[in-house]
C-alpha cells in the first residue's frame, strides 16, 4: 500500500524522451514555431514569384556583394558564440563574456549593414508597394522577409547583452552554462534562417 504512495511522490520515470534540460526543450519548441513562421514567409515568396509574370531578377536588382559579406559576418558571429560557450565550459568567465560581446557586436554590425542596404535600395526606388523593375510584390516580400529576420537579429543582440550581465552575476561558470547554451540555440537559429533567406531571396 505504501509502495504506491512512494511511487506517486517521485518524479516520473525517465524515458528516452525526457530532455536533459527543460529550458533547452522550451527554446527548441519556440524555434520550431519560429521556423514555421519563416517557412511560411519563404513559401509565400516562392508562390508569389512563381505565379508572377514580371518578377525582377533579385540578383541584378539587390546586388550580392554586401549581402555575401553580411552572411560571412553572421557565420563568424556564430563561431564567437560557440567559443563563448566553450570558454564557459572551461571555467573562464572573463573570456566567455568577451566572446559574448563579440557575438553581440557582430549582430549589431549586421543590422547596421542591413539598414544601410535598405536605405540604399529605397533610394533607388525599391518600395514596399512598388518598384521600377517589375512586380510590386517583389519589394513587399523583400522588406517583410528581411525585416522579420532583422528584427530577430536585433532581439538576439539585446538577448546577448542581457546574457553578459547574467554571466557577470553568477560567480560559478557552471551556473550560467545552460542558459548561455540556450542563448546560443537562438543565435545559431537566426544564422540558419539567414542562410535560407540569402539563398532564396538573393541568389536564386
Amino acid at each position, binding site marked *: 500500500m505504501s509502495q504506491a504512495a512512494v511511487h506517486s511522490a517521485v518524479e516520473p520515470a525517465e524515458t*528516452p*524522451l*525526457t*530532455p*536533459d*534540460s527543460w529550458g*533547452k*526543450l522550451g527554446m*527548441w*519548441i519556440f*524555434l*520550431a*514555431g519560429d*521556423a*514555421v513562421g519563416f*517557412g*511560411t514567409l519563404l*513559401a509565400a515568396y*516562392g*508562390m508569389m514569384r*512563381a*505565379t508572377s*509574370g514580371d518578377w525582377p531578377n533579385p*540578383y541584378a536588382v539587390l546586388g*550580392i556583394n554586401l549581402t*555575401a559579406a553580411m*552572411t*560571412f559576418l553572421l*557565420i*563568424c558571429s*556564430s*563561431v564567437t*558564440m*560557440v*567559443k563563448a*560557450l*566553450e570558454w564557459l*565550459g572551461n*571555467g573562464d568567465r572573463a573570456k566567455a563574456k568577451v566572446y559574448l560581446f563579440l557575438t553581440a557586436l557582430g549582430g549589431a554590425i549586421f543590422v547596421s549593414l542591413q539598414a544601410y542596404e535598405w536605405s540604399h535600395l529605397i533610394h533607388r526606388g525599391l518600395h514596399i508597394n512598388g518598384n521600377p523593375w517589375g512586380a510590386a510584390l517583389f519589394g513587399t516580400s523583400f522588406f517583410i522577409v528581411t525585416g522579420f529576420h532583422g528584427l530577430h537579429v536585433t532581439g538576439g543582440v539585446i538577448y546577448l547583452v542581457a546574457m553578459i550581465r547574467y554571466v557577470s552575476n553568477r560567480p560559478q*561558470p*557552471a551556473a550560467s*552554462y*545552460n542558459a548561455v*547554451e540556450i542563448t*546560443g*540555440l537562438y543565435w*545559431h*537559429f537566426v*544564422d*540558419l534562417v539567414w*542562410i*535560407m533567406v*540569402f*539563398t*532564396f531571396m538573393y*541568389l*536564386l
Partner: protein
Amino acid sequence: MATAHKHPNYMAIFWYLAILTVVELGVIFMPIGKVTIGVLLCALALGKATLVAMYFMHLRFETRTLGLVAVTPLVIATLLVFVLLPDGFAVVHQTAEKKAAATEPPKH
C-alpha cells in the same frame, strides 16, 4: 552538467560554411541551366543549415526529443509547399490562357 557533451571542432565547421558560401556564389555564375542552379543552391543551403543545426546547435549530441522537435517544422514546411502547388499551377495556367487570348486575333 557543465560540459555534458564534447565540443565538436567548431573551426572546421566554420571553414565548411565559409567554403560552401563561396561555392554558392560561384554556382550562380556557372554556365548551366537555371533549374540545375536552383537545385544546386537549395542543396547547398540545406547542407549549410544542417551543419549549423547539427554542430553549432549540438543537435547531433542531443536526445531524440529535441531531434523530433527540430524536424517538425521541416515536415510542416514540406507539406505546405505541396498544399500550395495546385493553386500555383492554377494561377500560372490562368495567366498563360489570358496571354494566349490577348494575342489571338479576334474571330469573325
